[in-house]
């Protein structure tokens, strides 16, 4: 570049900033509209980055790159960058005037990953699977919580063998119930055994919201959410309220269950939640005397979903008895083959989730 024909400092600053690509894109930060006002005062440059949905770590990277690029200009000694990462917070609490905030729905403090266990159809053993999966994850050394989002028919207290009342904390928060080393919350903890929950959608949704926001979950690697069957209000609220990191679908091998499981799968697809795979429950019955396998509900159903099959849990007495007695098979008989199957499922869930490989359906 000839010295006698140097463009003005603003032009050269823009030129430098155009060298900076946005991570994951070929486009530069000027084109993206991220760069707002640029002011030059003597040997200092002040760069304003517009409020956007930018994540904290990307912003940190870009700050470094901007400083690096601008320092290559001989007259620049100081670079100041004014920027905001996307805010994390509850929706609709008013943005600041003149500063269009882009807000992420807040994560749950301390909770690293949220996994939803769903089924299109009732009676496939979804809660049994959720409970055992939760305990299997905990046995693998993870800190785990279980949120029973089946407000109308909570079964987690019975299956986990506790009807403790959650302790109240400060600011209307509640502590989860601890059992077998995992944290639990369920509508069942707040009800008599007999009283039915006869509520309309909006109330139920506010309960789910409270379970997410007003429970002191402390530090968790995984929060497993046991969804009610089907694709209704609760599932949608959960998908809107928090960023779900993965969905697992439970089914039985029979065709009629598969029909509904497809609905569960499309629900996760529509709300853009990575599907980690499908768990086939009551996969077969093994006669305890002659050890002959009987495929009561048919076979190969889970494969037909086109998703990764995370495991096939047989129909065995120990699973049913464990759930009814409040001692899930994973804790009561960890060496039993069916408990081992749950450990295998847990390992696969962790692997699928950590690799962030969403299973595509089509």
């Amino acid at each position, binding site marked *: 570049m000839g010295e006698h024909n140097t463009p003005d400092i603003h032009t050269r600053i823009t030129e430098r900033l155009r060298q900076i690509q*946005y991570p994951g894109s070929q486009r530069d930060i000027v084109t993206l509209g991220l760069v707002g006002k640029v002011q030059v005062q003597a040997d200092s440059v002040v760069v304003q980055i517009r409020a956007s949905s930018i994540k904290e770590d990307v912003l940190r990277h870009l700050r470094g790159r901007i400083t690096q690029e601008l320092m290559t200009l001989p007259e620049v000694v100081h670079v100041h960058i004014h920027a905001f990462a996307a805010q994390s917070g509850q929706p609709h609490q008013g943005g600041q005037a003149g500063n269009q905030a882009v*807000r992420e729905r807040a994560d749950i403090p301390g909770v690293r990953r949220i996994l939803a266990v769903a089924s299109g159809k009732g009676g496939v053993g979804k809660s049994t699977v959720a409970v055992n999966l939760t305990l299997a994850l905990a046995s693998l050394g993870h800190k785990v919580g279980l949120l029973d989002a089946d407000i109308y028919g909570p079964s987690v207290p019975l299956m986990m063998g506790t009807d403790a009342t959650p302790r109240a904390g400060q600011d209307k928060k509640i502590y989860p119930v601890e059992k077998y080393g995992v944290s639990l919350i369920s509508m069942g903890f707040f009800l008599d055994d007999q009283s039915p929950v006869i509520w309309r959608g909006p109330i139920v949704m506010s309960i789910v919201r409270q379970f997410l926001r007003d429970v002191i979950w402390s530090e968790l690697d995984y929060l497993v959410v046991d969804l009610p069957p089907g694709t209704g209000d609760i599932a949608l609220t959960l998908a*809107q309220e928090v960023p779900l990191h993965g969905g697992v679908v439970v089914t039985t091998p029979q065709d009629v269950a598969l029909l509904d499981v497809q609905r569960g799968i499309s629900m996760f697809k529509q709300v853009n939640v990575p599907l980690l795979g499908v768990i086939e429950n009551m996969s077969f019955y093994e006669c305890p005397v002659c050890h002959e396998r009987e495929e009561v509900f048919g076979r190969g159903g889970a494969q037909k979903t086109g998703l990764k099959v995370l495991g096939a849990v047989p129909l065995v007495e120990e699973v049913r008895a464990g759930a009814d007695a409040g001692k899930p098979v994973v804790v009561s008989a960890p060496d039993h083959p069916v408990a081992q199957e749950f450990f295998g499922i847990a390992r696969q869930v962790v692997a699928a989730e950590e690799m962030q490989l969403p299973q595509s359906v089509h």
Partner: protein
Amino acid sequence: MPTPLLLTPIMEDQLLRVLWDDDTLNDYPFAYLRGWCPCAVCQGHGGERHFIKVENPQLVSIDMVGNYAVNPTWNDGHETGIYTYAYLRSLGQSQDHPHSHNNPEEPD
């Protein structure tokens, strides 16, 4: 599903700029975005989507909805529109002729 990598409201130009994960870049002028609000308050239930003309709407804030949609809040307090990524993307592609794209069944 195309997913936004970055959403940047640009006041000076009165638009929302969206970078998608396939590197597509779309601009959504505020009046355009507000006009195609998909909520039931604006659109009613059923029937074709139609454009709601609002004078000089200002974007106050925009919330991410789970992993699948965005939810803008406008200066008149309107905040019920949940734009799924797929819908937002279709609005971006059809900016010049929103009618033809959003109402494909509509005879001319």
